[in-house]
């Protein structure tokens, strides 16, 4: 048992140091957010930028004096998308008194659902995790707060339909996706829409992580699609676009899920895939007022959490957007109980009463309620012009009836068996 004793001593030392530092923090009024995220293994393509956005926004709020005297602190640790490490971080943060936890990893988030529900801890499942958590009646403490994959798929079809003047009859739409839970998730939406709108739809799965898709894309070419939808993440997206271009598929007929950013386009070559479309769930660029404020008041004063050139990129803005929603939830919680320190439960109330919140133009109008944790399911389409993503539509939501049918079917199943 030698090694274990040593490890427990090490763990004890950590505990001692962290209680010491939290004692120092306790001098001022602080609301803690727990951000155990994957900086090293699977979600590397997004986490660093996302986390930088979250921290920069919290710095902005703190610089401006916080909310009713409360400052915000971000507790960050790497869980490497490993469930045991995620659980350890969750339990540690819970004991340190965080009001919410944002793991940004589907496997970790899914495994934390039973704990979060039992502990009444807000589990942020932004842009990942269970889509059916949009049903607030089944998942009171699980907060996606973002347009889920079913809504994203419906919106892409809606945009394509608008380009075809509302008539998709006989059109061929190819769907190239990573063969994982995430990649297969939109299939029921697409199949249902194909039935309703009369387009021909075929799925082309590639194996994870998608480093080789040459066979898949020659099949797509043979299918002669009018439009192609790509559904992957990180390196898989880069390979998809390269292969599509190599197979002569016009770039302005390829539309991607929200996971496509400036950094991936840089890898492909900025001019190699001009015209690619993607869905945006958060406005990109530095034009939104919040991002401009961060540039001026945080990054401009040398207090940025990372490189300045990252500010305004897709994933950075997603991080900022999520942080604005979290802070808004705390603000509403404090509005309701101005004299009590925010707790996970009061913040839950706050998050679930966010109404028509746009974060000054960064988000579509988001309304979270006790029944709807998705917030409306709006998004917009943007196009790569060789340098940046340019919005090509207004914010819109499409076919939410199909989306909610799927949400309800899945959440009913959860209610029945999750006991």
């Amino acid at each position, binding site marked *: *048992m*030698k*090694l*274990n004793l040593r*490890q*427990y001593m*090490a*763990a004890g*030392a*950590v*505990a001692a*140091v*962290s209680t*010491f*530092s939290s004692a120092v923090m306790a001098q001022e009024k602080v609301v803690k957010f727990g951000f155990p995220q994957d*900086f*090293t293994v699977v979600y590397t393509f997004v986490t*660093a930028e996302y*986390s*930088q956005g979250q921290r920069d926004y919290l710095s902005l709020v703190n610089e401006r004096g916080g909310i009713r005297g409360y400052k915000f602190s971000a507790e*960050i*640790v*790497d869980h*490497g*998308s*490993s*469930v*045991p*490490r995620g*659980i*350890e971080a969750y*339990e*540690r943060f819970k*004991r340190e008194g965080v009001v919410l936890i944002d793991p940004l990893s*589907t*496997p970790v988030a*899914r*495994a934390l*659902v*039973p*704990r979060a529900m039992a502990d009444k801890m807000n589990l942020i499942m932004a842009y990942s995790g*269970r*889509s*059916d958590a949009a049903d607030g009646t089944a998942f009171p403490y699980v907060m996606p707060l973002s347009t889920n994959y079913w809504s994203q798929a419906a919106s892409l079809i809606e945009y394509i339909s608008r380009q075809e003047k509302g008539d998709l009859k006989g059109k061929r739409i190819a769907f190239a996706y990573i*063969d*994982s*839970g995430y990649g*297969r*998730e939109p299939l*029921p939406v697409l199949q249902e829409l194909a039935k309703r709108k009369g387009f021909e739809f075929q799925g082309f799965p590639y194996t994870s992580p998608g480093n080789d898709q040459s066979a898949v894309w020659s099949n797509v070419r043979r299918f002669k699609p009018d439009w192609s939808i790509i559904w992957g993440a990180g390196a898989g997206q880069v390979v998809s676009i390269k292969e599509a271009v190599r197979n002569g598929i016009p770039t302005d007929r390829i539309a991607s899920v929200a996971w496509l950013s400036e950094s991936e386009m840089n890898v492909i070559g900025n001019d190699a895939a001009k015209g690619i479309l993607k869905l945006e769930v958060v406005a990109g660029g530095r034009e939104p007022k919040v991002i401009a404020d961060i540039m001026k008041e945080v990054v401009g004063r040398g207090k940025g*959490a*990372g490189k300045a050139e990252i500010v305004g990129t897709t994933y950075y803005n997603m991080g900022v957007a999520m942080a604005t929603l979290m802070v808004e939830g705390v603000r509403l919680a404090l509005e309701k109980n101005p004299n009590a320190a925010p707790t996970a439960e009061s913040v839950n109330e706050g998050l679930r009463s966010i109404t028509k919140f746009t974060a000054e133009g960064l988000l579509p109008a988001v309304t979270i309620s006790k029944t709807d944790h998705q917030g409306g399911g709006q998004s917009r389409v943007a196009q790569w012009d060789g340098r940046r993503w340019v919005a090509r539509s207004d914010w819109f939501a499409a076919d939410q009836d199909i989306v909610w049918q*799927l949400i309800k079917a*899945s959440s009913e*199943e*959860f209610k029945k*068996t*999750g*006991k």
Partner: protein
Amino acid sequence: MFYRAAGIRHTRYESDRRLWRLPFDRWLVGAVVLLLLIAPFVVNSLYLGTYMLPWLVWATATLGLNLLMGGAGQVHLGYGAVMAIGAYGSVHLARAGLPFELVLLAAGFLSATIGVVFGAAALRVKGLYLAISTLAMQYLVDFVIVHVPAISGGTQATLQVPKITFFGMRVVSDVDNYYLALFVCALVTLFMLNVRRTSLGRALAAVREKDYAAEIIGVSTFRYKLLAFWVSSFIGGVVGCLFAFCYYKAVTPEQFHLELSIQLLAAVIVGGLGSVLGSFFGAALILLAPVILNNVIGAASRAFSLNVSADIAAHAPLMLYGALIVGFLLFEPLGLAKIYNNVRNYFVVWPFRHARK
């Protein structure tokens, strides 16, 4: 001086064949067992639920794999898949209303049945070739779980674990789960400690050393290779059930991917092939070292206000972790159990070094 081997003479076979021949060892084991039993009352709930509980579960899994790798000399790169079968099987059975005591056994039988089919590859191939065919099992099982919604649980591919009772006791809190895991771990440990003294264990050792030589002396390699896979998969299935019910409480396919198989393989090798104690050390190092290093480095950088970038802060523990594994194996290729043994051998005769055999 500590072990007091002087004057201890084994005059009967029974006493000579005891698991722990020196009183000191028996006291040590007793003390450790006592510590494990009272842990829920003395250890902070955070460490109980997120360090000790998973450690026991991982150690049990490592023991199961060690029987196959250390005991019978057969490589298995798909042990995560074996556990997945147990986990998914047990959750479905528990949802269908089977009592947990039976679920635990059924999970073992299910994994053993499927595991032995893939183990049949071992009858034809050895070494690296066997590694590849068991790797195929990993991918096949992963594929089937992900592509059959009836197994994985629909569009969200998550199965919530139902609440259980174990011999009339409700298993709800971390403490309950800890005792359940400890109970199963103790059973498997006892089995593993004793198996090498049985005809089965000796037959496995014969197969491990040279399978055709074993055949010549009358040990059926066909039978014992399959039996090794059967028993090891049975333990794997039971542990898979523990994974689901005691620790994760929600089963998703990613939990049992190749990473888990590699982790367990690493735990067996770093801990020491064939060693029971080594399985516990190996599981502790492989499972807990990344978490602890991460927390120590994080706390250190906060305490000394080091301004390291998030990237380096996240990767430094990984580098240290890798260095730790390489370091231990360079220092003692036979694993952590051998290091413990070296220390023990030193102290058995200390301070009379010349008395060492």
